[in-house]
């Protein structure tokens, strides 16, 4: 490199270019991580195939894929927006990535926007893949796609808030353990593969208030029963979004 190579010429890139670059990098990091792929793609797809083709779960009247597909879509949202994002962000924080980016021209809002876009991009890929699998298994979805999209977005907001809250307050290793544990518990107790009416009434009325239950129930109302927007479930998700994102904004520590 010759004289004058380093002559200062400092200036930030346009913010849209920064967000695009950051989104692309975040998505690459996510898709390159084997454990994340297991969680976001392989487990939901396996559950869908296994329980649709093997009759070991009592999923009520109708084809079991019609019950399972909405639940697995809800699980996919949770795996990316909550579990995956919590673990990835926890380790970004631990490795000083968030700190280093904090001294770059990338504004924090742009970083958060990129993380959100990367989550949404991953979800689009998940939903496309799971839809194809479900259709191949004989799924016949109903309802308004816009209501489905609205529920998926609300679910993403709710789970992102909780995931970021965890990533920004706990140690990376604790986040890793807790996020996986919560994923498992909510998989079983959130109406994803086991209908909530299998639980005792008292337990069930609590479980129904979980974001995963609201999302899987809301999606099922629309996709299986052809219902209009399920406002009750949407309201539960909206509450979790406000609480989760609010708490994350308040308590998130960048280092």
């Amino acid at each position, binding site marked *: 490199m010759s004289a004058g190579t380093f002559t200062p010429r400092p200036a930030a890139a346009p913010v849209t270019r920064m967000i695009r670059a950051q989104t692309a990098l975040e998505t690459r990091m996510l898709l390159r991580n084997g454990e994340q792929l297991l969680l976001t793609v392989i487990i939901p797809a396996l559950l869908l195939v296994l329980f649709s083709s093997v009759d070991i779960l009592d999923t009520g009247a109708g084809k079991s894929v019609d019950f399972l597909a909405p639940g697995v879509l809800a699980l996919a949202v949770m795996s990316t927006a909550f579990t995956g994002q919590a673990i990835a962000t926890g380790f970004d924080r631990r490795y000083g990535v968030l700190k280093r980016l904090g001294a770059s*021209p990338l504004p924090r809002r742009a970083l958060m926007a990129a993380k959100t876009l990367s989550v949404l991009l991953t979800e689009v890929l998940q939903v496309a893949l799971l839809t194809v699998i479900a259709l191949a298994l004989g799924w016949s979805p109903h309802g308004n796609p816009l209501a489905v999209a609205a529920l998926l977005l609300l679910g993403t907001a709710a789970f992102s808030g909780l995931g970021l809250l965890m990533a920004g307050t706990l140690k990376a290793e604790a986040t890793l353990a807790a996020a996986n544990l919560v994923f498992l518990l909510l998989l079983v107790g959130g109406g994803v593969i086991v209908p909530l009416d299998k639980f005792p009434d008292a337990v069930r009325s609590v479980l129904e208030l979980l974001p995963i239950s609201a999302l899987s129930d809301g999606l099922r109302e629309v996709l299986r029963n052809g219902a209009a927007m399920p406002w009750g479930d949407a309201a539960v998700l909206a509450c979790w979004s406000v609480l989760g994102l609010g708490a994350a904004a308040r308590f998130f520590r960048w280092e």
Partner: protein
Amino acid sequence: MSNDPAVEIRGLVKRYGPKTAVDGLDLTVRRASVTAVLGPNGAGKTTTVETCEGYLRPDAGTVRVLGLDPITQAPALRPRIGVMLQSGGVYSGARAVEMLRHMASLYADPLDVPALVDRLGLGSCGRTPYRRLSGGQQQRLALAMAVVGRPELVFLDEPTAGLDPQARRATWDLVRELRADGVGVVLTTHHMDEAEQLADEVAIVDAGKVVAHGSPELLCRGGAENTLRFTGRPSLDLASLLKALPDGTQAAELTAGVYRVTGDVDPQMLATVASWCAQNGVMPDSLTVERHTLEDVFLELTGKELRA
């Protein structure tokens, strides 16, 4: 605006709970110069630098970097500074060139990435994820990330810690190139030779304060006597030598034929001693100048070994 100093710190205080990390520190850094902040571990070097980078809010005092407040004017300041953290700062799964290219994309007019990759020998990192790179490769990547945006001022926190001698020299060369091209450099170190080799100005920090500040030459001369030794015939007439030398200079024959001259050793003094030897028909064997090193200065100022 360009007349502002690169860094101006007045009365900086930073506490962590009951512990005071920085205790009324003052420091001014000229533009386009290399300043070494030298001190033992725990002296407050990193805290000072991280306050300049906008990571920490001072408990008291003022900090201005390129004339800007690092906290309230961060959006204006960030594109103009380059930062190398002591460790980390890269996605564990990212490849070196990928991360560098990403940093470059955050700036409007970055350096040529392939050229910088070559310059710092990062090409050999290939597809290895960051977490499996060697310590030296991680350091070089962090350095590349600090300069890729063409900043006016870079902060390097222990840039050569853990590097082998060859890699250290490569880093020093880069720092010299940065200065030659008009980039200011503030680096922390606890290597005396690094400060002596690189820095225009050295700020010695101990217990949260700057205890001495100046060019390495000035610091080594100030207060500390320097020594010149030579050997020759025994029993030379030192009184005639002292007459030719400035007041305050001392001379002694330590053992037969071994002489020591103490005082302000400069080229003039050396010439005087040499010509006095010529007049007396003495061949001054093993004529050596023993200057005080920064290490000595540091020891005198702080009573501590630097590499404790």
